[in-house]
């Protein structure tokens, strides 16, 4: 099944190139069919993230899209993960779409849109409870964390 992810990602890439991405979402790099980086900003005047841009990295395994990709906000000199109650300071994200509600019909842009709307609906800039403890012990791959999705609406 090694061809599964490649064919699908080529198609997603072709769609992005021909039709573009939704506003506020830019494909920064897609050098391989294994790792893409998108830039995400929240539109409008209402948002608490006005003027901020975040980098969302996706790593695709060869079972993508049956398996959910590994998705994190980049945390480096250039980009910082958004201050959000579901985003840890190491860039890990707790969102059901990246866990038990992932569906193979979703795609990279759909993940970006979800992240964008997750940021757009947030009113309070804060880290998740227990951020420090989690970051200290977290595996590098967030998919190995057993997330508990209590309230996705935040």
């Amino acid at each position, binding site marked *: 099944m090694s061809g599964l992810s490649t064919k699908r990602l080529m198609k997603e890439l072709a769609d992005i190139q021909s039709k573009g991405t939704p506003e506020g979402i830019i494909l920064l790099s897609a050098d391989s069919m294994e790792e893409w980086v998108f830039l995400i900003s929240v539109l409008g005047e209402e948002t608490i993230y006005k003027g901020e841009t975040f980098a969302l990295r996706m790593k695709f395994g060869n*079972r993508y*899209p049956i398996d959910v990709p590994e998705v994190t906000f980049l945390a480096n000199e250039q980009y910082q993960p958004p201050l959000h109650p579901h985003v840890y300071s190491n860039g890990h994200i707790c*969102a059901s779409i990246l866990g038990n*509600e992932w569906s*193979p019909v979703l*795609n990279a842009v759909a993940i970006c849109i979800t992240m964008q709307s997750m940021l757009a609906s947030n009113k309070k800039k804060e880290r998740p409870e227990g951020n420090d403890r989690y970051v200290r012990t977290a595996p590098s791959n967030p998919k190995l964390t057993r997330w508990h999705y209590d309230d996705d609406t935040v």
Partner: protein
Amino acid sequence: MSSDGDNDDFLYEDEYDDGFDQDEEIDIDSTSEPDVYDAMSPAIEEAPQKKPYDVSWKVKTLQEIIDMQNKEISKVQALLEVPSSSAAILLRHYVWNSEKLQEQFWNDPSQALEEAGLSPSSSPTARTTALPPSPTKRSNRSLRPGPSSLLKRTRSTQPTGPFECPICCMEYDYSSTYSMGCDHRFCKDCWIEYLSGKIKGEGESAKIQCMESGCKRIVREEVIDDLVTKDISKRYHNLLNAAFVADSPTLRWCPHPNCEYIIECSQAPTRMLNQLVPTVECKCGNDLCFGCGYAASHRPVLCRIVRLWEKKCADDSETANWLQANTKECSKCQSTIEKNGGCNHMTCKKCKYEFCWVCMGPWSEHGTSWYQCNRYDEKSGIDARDTQAKSRASLERYLHYFNRWANHEHSAKLDAEFYQKTEKKMEQMQNSGNLSWIEVQFAKQAVDAVIKARITLKWSYCMAFYLKRNNMTELFEDNQRDLERAVENLGYLLEQNISDTDSIAKLRQDITNQAAYVQKRHDILMDDTLRGYLERRWEFTVDT
């Protein structure tokens, strides 16, 4: 038992037409080899009076568990007039509570079907070409992306021309695709990959949903069997059966390695576990606790107390390691002594000093005065003046009980050796003492009694650790001490060397008597403790 009554209905229904199971329906006191009892002494045919703290149980095979489910499925299928795979999905959704299922179903059939993942209209996205806006799921609404035209799906309502699978983006003939009642069509390769991953990778079975985002449609058994490989289908059915057993409060897998039997017991629901210790015996020959799944008898201790104790022992494992060391020094000559038998009466090979392995005190004190080795002297703790002394006193108190618990645990590990040694002795007696095979069986029976009593004693120290200090507890510790002494004496007798025929006859008499006494003391401790729960006699320092 009312809250479990619903389940009992179907789980017990087929008991009466199943003659094979009849002799499983016996109480704990006579579980072993009922056939032998019947053959040897017809008097025992009338089963002994069941003790109020004992439970009845049955041992089921996997096939019987499968039959149980099928029977229930066909009943629901006939009653609700739905296909059998729908009946199965409905039952699993309602956790095999068929009364509740029927109630909900007749109240609102389409809602019952939808909740279980069966209604064709359960997917809000079935008629759209957009990516997953999931309007019915309030909590996810803000998370869901809006309509996007990235991956247009060919509608299955137009089965002409090639079909492009929205997952792998390859073109297929319609015959190589599949969609459920929800009309979400994907290629069979993607279905296979998805289902195999769910079953093999994530161990899912009854709750595997449609691949479409937000669609709650459950994939039917026969669809899965049809698509995945034989191995994965087998694993899928194992998972379904495991879920059935796990969901049923009256069933439990035997925890012993390689055993595939399932125990059925309706008399030990969770809420009874503060007064019952439901030890049962599996057909594999091993005991287990039906209440908590502990892979041995932990009588007379309540499941919850066992859990607390195990956690405490794990937390204090460093102390435990230090204590579990199997060597000690002779307190007189300091030479190292290794414990290799079950008896606590030790004699230093070097200086002949006789002492007790548990408290290291001279054995003579144990022989003449009462055996004081079982009870922790709380008075020394009362004198504690500052907190440090208090915490030391509390550690010492724990160590006192743990030490005795671990000592019996350690002895139990030497069981095989104990049997071997005894067998050798039995041979010896047959050769030199002119005793027949049957005449030397007393030794094996004595070892059986010692081992059984040691397990009970081991747990009795866990119990004593959590008991409040009061008169009842003193009586408990008196019984414990009496059994401890009886076991020690019998262990000591069993370690004696045989010299001549006369001494064999005497030893045989002594061992037989002492073994009977151990059995008696054991039964007294067990019976009194287990009855004590029902009579609410025991007060613990923790919640039960």
